[in-house]
């Protein structure tokens, strides 16, 4: 299940500076596991010690916040877009 993952600046040191990478998996969690294989160090930036999404990370699947879907278990299809976005932004 290849998907496109948009990588924010703070994580690009793991991707050789690239802002978009390919990964595969049937769920968001599986995609993160695959990202870790391809770009070691990324998983611990995204997930806490309990394997849950970190407080200040938002992940969007085709534009939808995965917390409105099935969290890290949200199903991923071929060709989906995943975007990793720092949560700290905005203010009316």
């Amino acid at each position, binding site marked *: 299940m290849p998907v496109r993952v948009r990588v924010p600046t703070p994580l690009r040191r793991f991707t050789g500076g690239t802002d978009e990478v390919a990964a595969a998996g049937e769920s968001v969690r599986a995609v993160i596991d695959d990202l870790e294989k391809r770009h070691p160090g990324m998983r611990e930036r995204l997930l806490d010690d309990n394997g849950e999404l970190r407080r200040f990370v938002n992940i969007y699947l085709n534009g939808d916040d995965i917390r409105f879907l099935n969290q890290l278990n949200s199903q991923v299809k071929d060709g989906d877009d995943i975007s990793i976005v720092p949560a700290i932004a*905005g203010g009316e």
Partner: protein
Amino acid sequence: MSYVTNLKCRECGQEYPIKPLHVCEDCFGPLEVNYDYAKIRAAVSRATIAARPHNLWRYRELLPVDGEPEAGPFSGFTPLLQARRLGAELGLKKLYIKDDTVNHPTLSYKDRVVSVAITKARDFGFTTVSCASTGNLATAVAAHAARAGLKSVIFMPEGVEAGKIVGSSIYGARVITIRGNYDDVNRLCSEIADKYGWAFVNINLRPYYTEGAKTFGFEVAEQLGWKLPNHIVLPTAGGTILPKVAKAFKEFKEVGLVHGGEFKIHCAQAAGAAPVIHALHKGTDLITPVKPDTIAKSIAIGNPADGFYVLRAVRESGGWGEMASDPEIIDAIKLLARTEGIFAEPAGGTTLAVAIKLIAAGRIKADESVVVSITGNGYKTLEAVAQSIEAPLVIEARLKDFDAIYESLGDGKRSLKGAA
């Protein structure tokens, strides 16, 4: 002289230079401006501040600027009114309204944060500034950018009030509305800021921008005679102002401008966008985002960036929070207008409605000092109350037409429409 030392991650403590950065590379935590408080303590006094012009820069040692401010020469230092008639209705002796409906030049608290952000944008050499906004920030960015000679591009969710679209475009800002809610706009703008490197005041300039919100708290303390109130009630959307007012009160203690004084800080949200209140009431610090649905569009944020820090500030102070339904918000807007002559936007109605609930619950007592924070102006959000006011009577320009309705006017009853 600068009293700023660096940026520091609030979560892991990692330090960063003073640059347009807002997220920690290690833990994604928010970066916060760090000051040398010992140096500030030696440099400021009540007398030096009191002698300065009535604008937000009178607290400049506690703001993240080095040179001369580039924006906001008349922003801030809004009235703190003792609300005697409203206080009498609510059974409070020391009720105050901090009235940012008359902030210069765009009539909301956003003139504070934007004054700082535009100054930093100029410092950093940006020529275009931008923001994701529910409207008040939009108008502030557009106006302050115009005066500073910067271009502005403004992103808002579709469906914001006309006053906020017109009130941004008029200054020459390019307005882009997004099919979605504020949280969608904010996510898109985060990606745009990351890709194109524009100066988004509330994204990559956020550490500086948010510091401007402290001036709301500094002014409250100074205007109370260098004292802290027993209670302050603040609206929460993205969560900028509430933790920054808590920080302001602590900083004033730290640098010796106020002595002692315990304060409780309370959070107000609209029931249709209350993720922080839900977490507060559940006793968790995990904030579950919601899809916002409220007439209080300026605070219709379902995924607040700083919600966690709002919870922390409220709990640390021993404060509380409640939410207000749309009808309660409208009633409170009308109550404030009728008793104190202040026309608040729905965020202000939310704050007052929540203050009333806190009084009813006994969390605020009759002899305690209370500040209700009114952060935006009702003239920008006429749509919210247009259906809730008494419609004008329409008569011909004939005295006998007036004679026919005269009796009805003294007691405020509605009647005799079009009497002949």
